[in-house]
């Protein structure tokens, strides 16, 4: 009995260390991949809808860039119209699902045509996971309590869809 217990403990240690190293390598790999990828478009989605509300086209007109609003968010009239696009501040404001005292909160997304990056600069949620993520050039940004997400599209994907 004692011997099998020791064997199990040894296996436990080997397993833990091995898995930790594998996960570490995978994490570093993902980090490198997300900073090096060259996105041509970023799509902003709400909920589990498959069509993006807003598309940021970085590559349009040789890097001049443009914002495509596919449709407006369906919200009660008291909230006003969303998305709000500010070309001057380079921000897109959407209405998230997270509520404070029964009022849905806004999510402010900043984009940069030259850096081809997107950052969530303002958002209300318990842990602020997506706004703490900082600037992203390829890694998706997911605001789970707000049910808003940003996904990138690389040029390979464009070729594939054509």
């Amino acid at each position, binding site marked *: 009995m004692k011997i099998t*217990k020791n064997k*199990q*403990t040894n*296996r*436990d*240690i080997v*397993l*833990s260390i091995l*898995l*930790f190293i594998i*996960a*570490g390598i*995978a*994490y570093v*790999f*993902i980090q490198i991949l*997300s900073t090096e990828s060259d996105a041509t478009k970023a799509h902003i*989605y709400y*909920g*589990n*809808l*498959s069509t993006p509300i807003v598309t940021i086209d970085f590559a349009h007109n040789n890097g001049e860039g443009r914002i495509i609003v596919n449709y407006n968010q369906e919200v009660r009239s008291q909230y006003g119209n969303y998305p709000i696009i500010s070309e001057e501040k380079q921000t897109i404001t959407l209405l998230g*699902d997270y509520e404070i005292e029964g009022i849905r909160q806004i999510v402010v997304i900043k984009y940069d045509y030259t850096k081809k990056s997107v950052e969530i600069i303002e958002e209300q949620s318990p*842990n*602020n*996971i997506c706004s*703490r993520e900082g600037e992203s050039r390829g*890694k*998706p940004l*997911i605001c*789970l*309590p707000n*049910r808003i*997400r940003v*996904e990138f599209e690389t040029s390979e994907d464009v070729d594939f869809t054509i």
Partner: protein
Amino acid sequence: MTLLANLLAIAIVLNIIESAFPIIPVPGAKLGFANIVTLVVLYIYSFKDSSILTILRVLLVALLSGKLLGPVFYMSIAGAVTATLVMGIMKKTNFFGMIGVSVIGSIFHCIGQIVAGIFVIGSTAIIWYLPIMLFLSIPSGALTGIIAKRFVATWQTWHNEIS
């Protein structure tokens, strides 16, 4: 039965405390101390008791924090159920000890959460978060395993003394 109810109460308290005071500086990541109770019950009672306790814990914590049926709730219940199921199977095989079972459980907790997340947000983009989650959950799974192992060892000597 009374002890099980007490353990459930401990699990709920642990769960709420660690959500309120993040020890790990990464947002959303928890040490998973409530899993100590799942693991302990799995070893000193049965798989059935452990599953019931875990599901009740997730439901009651969601109810107490007002997150019942929200997107985060589906992810936590999926993670907890997958982890308990896999830990039950791993314990049966007897190949790993409590620490190994706990580490495997924590990995499947992440996988369960991510799979539920894919359905919640309707996109596979959330998979990008899996490596960081695994990287954090393996050491915390090992830690909870060590604590649970100590608990069971103490409990067994105490139990033998009474009977």
